[in-house]
């Protein structure tokens, strides 16, 4: 219909010819045309609006359909995403695995080389209890081991990695959208006990002593050399060859360390943080002491160290004290050296001023007494007199009191001396002495040394068996003794003037 109208409008001439002439004026026609045009335009506009609304409706519907499809796809993807989250497998594993199982996994990975003094299982158990027991077990992505095809996680506790868990896909694209479903693949121990702090143990012990670590003796294979003795004396510090301890070393220990010495006493540790070393020192429980007495002119060495007057603890005139009238003022000063707390018994030598090696006399205290070299000519001349004195002394001192013996002995002693007084005052005691027989196993007269023209000194050493009867019983005894004696000559006769018991 519209088309026919349009055709009429466009072909106006035929219609105009049918219009009555009275209506055929210009204004009417023009208005008619305008109305027709307006009507046509309005119709076109309505059609356009209808089309536009239709378009919008279709557009909206299509948009919403696409949007809904997108949301549906997102919904499906979300479901696939949730199902394919590998952490869910890990969550299940963490929930189902107890602490003891983690302990087992970790133990498998804990490769620890320990010395014979430690037990790796115990060590691991202690370490686990201290570091991991009661801690929260968690897991993290293992960055180095992770791949999209095999998600990997490190199970941790207490800041330590325990094991590496790798997941494996179930089928291909099982969750859809190219996503996988996962299952447990493998659990590989990853616990590294190298992180466990180790220390070296060094033990200094007296040579020959056995020390123990955690109850086990530290064998010779751990001995790495010598160590200086602690608190070395000043004398030993001057020795050419100083005493030493043995040093033992165990390179790596991880757990508790208990070190005891040969007596079972626990040793205190001394930590050297810088060198990651713990040191122990076993004490020396057997120290030595040395006492040496020698005339001042004798050169005494101890452990290679020559001793001087400044080192002596005592300097005295000795047995010649008070006999200056007979020695002509010649003094023989005797020095005494004393040392304690020595780790070893040092070699001791003594030489006279002229280089002769001297042999010491050891008294009952272990003191070493040196005398000047013997004057053989003097000995030959005076030994009989000394022997005579000694016989009389023994005869008096070891047998029942006898006034004849007493007087005989006094006759050999210079009156006015301490020795004379000593023998004189002994009478009251000697009346109790028993009848005794004496058998000498050893009897030596030695160390004859002149101290001026009218004085000499010597020693008498003996070892004897005595058989005695005291009142109602008999008994025997052995006696080892030594005396140092000084004799002086008065009017050509030698008299004992001083006597000192130096052993016995």
């Amino acid at each position, binding site marked *: 219909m519209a088309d026919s109208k349009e055709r009429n409008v466009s072909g106006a001439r035929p219609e105009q010819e049918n219009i009555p002439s009275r209506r055929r004026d210009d204004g009417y026609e023009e208005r008619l045309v305008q109305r027709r045009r307006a009507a046509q335009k309005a119709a076109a506009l309505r059609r356009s609006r209808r089309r536009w609304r239709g378009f*919008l409706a279709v557009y909206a519907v299509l948009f919403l359909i696409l*949007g809904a499809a997108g*949301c549906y796809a997102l919904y499906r993807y*979300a479901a696939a*995403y949730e199902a394919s989250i590998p952490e869910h497998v890990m969550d299940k594993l963490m929930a189902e695995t107890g602490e003891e199982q983690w302990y087992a996994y970790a133990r498998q990975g804990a490769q620890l080389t320990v010395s014979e003094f430690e037990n790796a299982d115990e060590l691991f158990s202690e370490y686990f209890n201290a570091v991991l027991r009661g*801690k929260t077990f968690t897991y993290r992505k293992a960055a*180095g081991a992770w791949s999209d095809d095999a998600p990997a996680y490190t199970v941790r506790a207490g800041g330590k990695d325990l094991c590496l868990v790798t997941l494996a896909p179930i089928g291909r694209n099982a969750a859809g959208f190219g996503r996988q479903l996962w299952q447990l693949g493998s659990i590989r121990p990853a616990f590294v006990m190298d992180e466990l702090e180790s220390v070296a143990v060094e033990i200094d012990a007296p040579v020959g002593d056995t020390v123990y670590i955690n109850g086990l003796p530290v064998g010779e294979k751990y001995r790495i050399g010598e160590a200086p003795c602690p608190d070395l004396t000043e004398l030993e510090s001057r020795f050419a060859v100083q005493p030493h301890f043995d040093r033992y070393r165990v390179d790596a220990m991880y757990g508790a360390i208990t070190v005891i010495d040969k007596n079972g006493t626990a040793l205190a540790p001394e930590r050297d943080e810088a060198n990651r070393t713990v040191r122990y020192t076993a004490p020396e429980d057997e120290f030595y002491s040395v006492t040496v007495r020698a005339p001042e002119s004798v050169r005494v060495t101890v452990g290679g160290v020559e001793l001087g007057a400044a080192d002596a603890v005592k300097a005295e005139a000795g047995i010649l004290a008070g006999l200056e009238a007979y020695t002509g003022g010649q003094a023989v000063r005797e020095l005494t050296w004393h040392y304690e707390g020595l780790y070893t018994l040092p070699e001791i030598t003594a030489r006279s001023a002229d280089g002769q090696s001297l042999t010491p006399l050891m008294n009952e205290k272990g003191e070493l007494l040196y005398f000047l070299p013997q004057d053989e000519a003097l000995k030959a001349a005076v030994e009989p007199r000394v022997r005579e004195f000694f016989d009389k002394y023994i005869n008096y001192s070891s047998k029942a009191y006898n006034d004849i013996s007493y007087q005989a002995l006094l006759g050999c002693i210079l009156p006015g001396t301490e020795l004379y007084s000593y023998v004189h005052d002994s009478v009251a005691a000697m009346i109790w002495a028993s009848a005794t027989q004496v058998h000498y196993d050893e009897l030596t007269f030695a160390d004859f040394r002149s101290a001026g023209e009218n004085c000499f000194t010597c020693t008498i050493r003996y070892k004897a068996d005595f058989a005695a009867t005291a009142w109602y019983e008999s008994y025997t005894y052995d006696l080892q003794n030594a005396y140092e004696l000084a004799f002086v000559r008065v009017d050509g006769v030698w008299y004992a003037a001083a006597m000192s018991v130096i052993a016995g």
Partner: protein
Amino acid sequence: MKRKTNTTSSSGGAALRALGRTGAFLGLTLLLVLIVLLGVVWVMEKGPSPTMTATFCRSMRETSAIRWIPNIFLTDEEIDAMKSQSTENADTETVNASLIHIAEGSNLSDGETAADAEPALQLIDIAQGTVKGKLLIVKDPSRVILGTSNNLGHQAGLQLTDMVAKYSGVAGINAGGFNDENGRGNGGIPWGLVITDGQLVWGNGGVRYNVVGIDGDGILRVGTMTGQEALAQGVRYGVSFVTHDGVASSLIINGEIQTQNLASGVNPRTAIGQRADGALLLLVLDGRSINTLGATLENVVDVMLQYGAVNAGNLDGGSSSVMVYGGEIINNCASVTGPRYIPTGFIVLPEGESHG
């Protein structure tokens, strides 16, 4: 003349119609987009993936301007159920300083020789799956200080580039949180606590904060403590930070992951950590871009652990996350209006200088 007028009127009507139709089309399109977006949000919030829902909601709630979105389809109770079990004051563990062995007098660690020495500053590109960002390893922790804006609390903050320049630093990252109501804060008012040069310059000595700080020995201190406790621990430079959901800032303490503090969405992140040899790890992970949507706090922990962190703390993230190196921002700042103005930043001093 009349005809001409009609012609003009006709063309004007057509223009109006075209304009109206365009407007209608755009309006309808916008409406449709909103409807579809609502559908998307519905799927995210009510869909079949609780993981996706939680991540989505946390991501939204961590961002000041759009934290209302989760409430479209979820009740407050449902949202609360997704929050971390962490509370701001839950952490009781403290940093064990004996686990950190800082080499003195040099930049060499124990057993390290000059030949194999690590550089004093090492910038690493982080690219692990969808996680991307920058990690700056500062060998000598004494080189790191806390920078603050001018007239803290009374004046707008500084952009990090300006803050680094203020301290003549060579690098820096943003640090503590700040008052940012609806994302319109000017970075001038810090959240919580600020300690500089051993002085509590912001915050209350008796209030507990989630502190991330560095003590006088260069040891990173993270954990919950009062201002006074932080000073007692020797914290010389410190800030505090919690997320909008109250998740505390401690990520790793003494090698142990603080799992209670890891519930998070995907967002740009800033964090600081410390290795056993004392080296500080300054980490910024990008987000809110085509390149990467962001990282969860779990991702942050993963990166920190990979690079040997023994202790680590989370700092202000989102559009605040920036790292400056060589005078320029080197990460992709997520702020659409340019780098944000912030009150605090950890600043790396030039080699040879230290806070000591």
